[in-house]
């Protein structure tokens, strides 16, 4: 029963501006930090590839089932995101520990030969992100001030 109301002049101006703005698409990347490695590029992959987010892929349980290699990939290639955070949690659960100076993940290969308040010393496995592989390091001193 209210019937139409004629638009005011300012409404017509606003509508003209809005029409023009509707042509300038808002990209998801507009409001995301720049991704160094995996920019948010929308790319039409073959339809038989999974097109939607895997269910529960944003849970710690999902990450705990991923292989160590996958976790390292996510940690180093999805920097600053929730994926990196969840990958780090899953690596810690597998007894990896992040060295904040070398920025690499270390895991004890055997019980350390010595442990003090400041450090522990022994043989470790570490993931070398430069050479992209796990390496063994004997006689390594892991200073606790670099333990995340």
């Amino acid at each position, binding site marked *: 029963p*209210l019937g139409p109301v004629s638009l005011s002049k300012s409404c017509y*101006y606003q509508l003209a501006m809005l029409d023009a703005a509707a042509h300038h698409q808002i990209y998801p990347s507009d409001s995301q930090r*720049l991704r160094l490695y995996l920019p948010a590029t929308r790319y039409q992959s073959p339809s038989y590839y999974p097109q939607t987010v895997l269910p529960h892929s944003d849970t710690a349980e999902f990450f705990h089932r991923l292989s160590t290699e996958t976790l390292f990939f996510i940690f180093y290639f999805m920097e600053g995101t929730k994926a990196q955070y969840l990958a780090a949690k899953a690596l810690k659960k597998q007894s990896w520990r992040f060295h904040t100076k070398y920025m690499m993940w270390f895991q004890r290969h055997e019980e350390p030969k010595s442990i003090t308040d400041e450090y522990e010393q022994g043989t470790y496995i570490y993931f070398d992100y430069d050479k992209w592989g796990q390496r063994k390091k004997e006689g390594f001193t892991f200073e606790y001030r670099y333990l995340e």
Partner: protein
Amino acid sequence: EGDPPGLVERTEKLLREWVGIHQSGQTAKMFPIFVQQMTVHGILKTDDLVTRFFRLSTEMCVESCYRLLATQPNGPNSLELRTKCYETLDAFTMLIVLLIKNSGSSSSTNLTPEPAAKINLLSKILSIIANVAIKDQETRRAEFQHLAYYRILILLFIELNLSPPMLGLPTQGFNNFNQMTANDVFADNVQLQVLYEFSKTLRLLKPSRVPSFAFAWLDFLSHRLFVEKCLSGQPANRPSGNILKGWALYAQLLIDLIKFEAPFLRNVELPPSVDLLYKGTLKMFLVLLHDFPEFLCEYCYSLCDVIPCNAIQLRNLVLSAFPRKMRLPDPFTPNLKIDQLPEMSQPPKTSALQNNLISTVTFKDELDSFLKTRSPVSFLNNLVGYLRAQSNQIALSLGGSKMNSLNVPLLNALVLYVGQSAISSIQPRPISLTNIAGTTQMDIFQHLATKLDTEGRYLFLNAIANQLRYPNSHTHYFSSALLYLFAVAPSEQIQEQITRVLVERLIIMRPHPWGLLVTFIELIKNPIFKFWKHEFVRCAPEIEKLFESVARSCC
């Protein structure tokens, strides 16, 4: 007045240098050296020069963005092009973040650096960016593009919120969601000030002022981090005052958005660009309904004051919200006795300001007096005239022209005020058709139902129907009031209009408020209303089919 000679060149030189530093990934290390450069160039000498530097820098970033976008005038931008725009904008944003982080004293004595200077600098920069955008809208008009402003603002918000140290806040942030330390409360207060500055900026850039920024504005409003900071109660037991302040900021922005869309929604046929904006609005409200129903419960009155009558689905969305802990009985349950639900005697929990429109002292005194003593007798006869006069006064005060329709917020406030008065005078007796009959409150409602014209009555009945929400004493009273008005209506036209107000809310796609469903089911099932005997139920074949289908789905 004009910038001092050489300032533009010095600003451009510094900005280029900084973009280069940012691209080399050396920002943290090179920042102190760069600040010295700024000092050498005299940028930091006075407040005025700092202001000019940021205005000029913003304009230069914007210009560089427009130049890049102009290289691909048609079709979607390639990511390379977009990334090129981001690089300059992100560099400028990071400069702002680092300047904010390092501003203000942080003497070793006090535990946490003085954030006031940081907040002041943030406030200044945000208002500079907003004013450059407003001026750009006025200059470029339809050529305006959101990207530069949106990217700088949203990234600034992200950096200041994802890295609390930027504000000199404790780094542990809110890892322990279970309890907040004194430091956490301090950090929460500072982050609330940051939130206030950004919401102030968004109000400056609201769609009615910068319509070209409307889509980006809504994207910002819907951004997960902004929603989190405004509405989320995380970390647990955050100071409740801070949560409600965040709610109030967010509610005001929603009202700005709806006020912009309202004139177009009012006419139902939406131009494509408004339709796109409105669909985005519905989607955002759907997230709010799913994640923060208590927020919508809290602000349903303010939102219904601005949602135009035609935006039925949006209004249904708001009115469908109910407290998460509440379990709603299925409204289609046969022989559901809603008056036996314990919640139906409890008022809806809300601290939102309401009835703030019945502020005219004389009217309120007369209203209160009539509610108590049914005098002055002239009150009822003057009521419709008063509502019209007030509506015109409000319209003129808002710079509009004399309205031939009633002021919706005023009518909503009156209906709510009278209804609350009725509930408190009836309780602890149960709310029922018998107990609401013959009360002074019902005198007022019956007077309005019979004396208002079709349009006025439509707005009045809508004001009642807006109270039909989740089980609470308001839903119970107003459901009974609507049914009572139907039962005692002196003309079939009023009954038809009551039916129309309910049905037009029901035939819209979901969601439907619980109170609306139980009211309509009662209307069509309870034989005392003789619903199916009314002429208007069969006024046209499609109407008859509609009622039967609604009845089938309801019963």
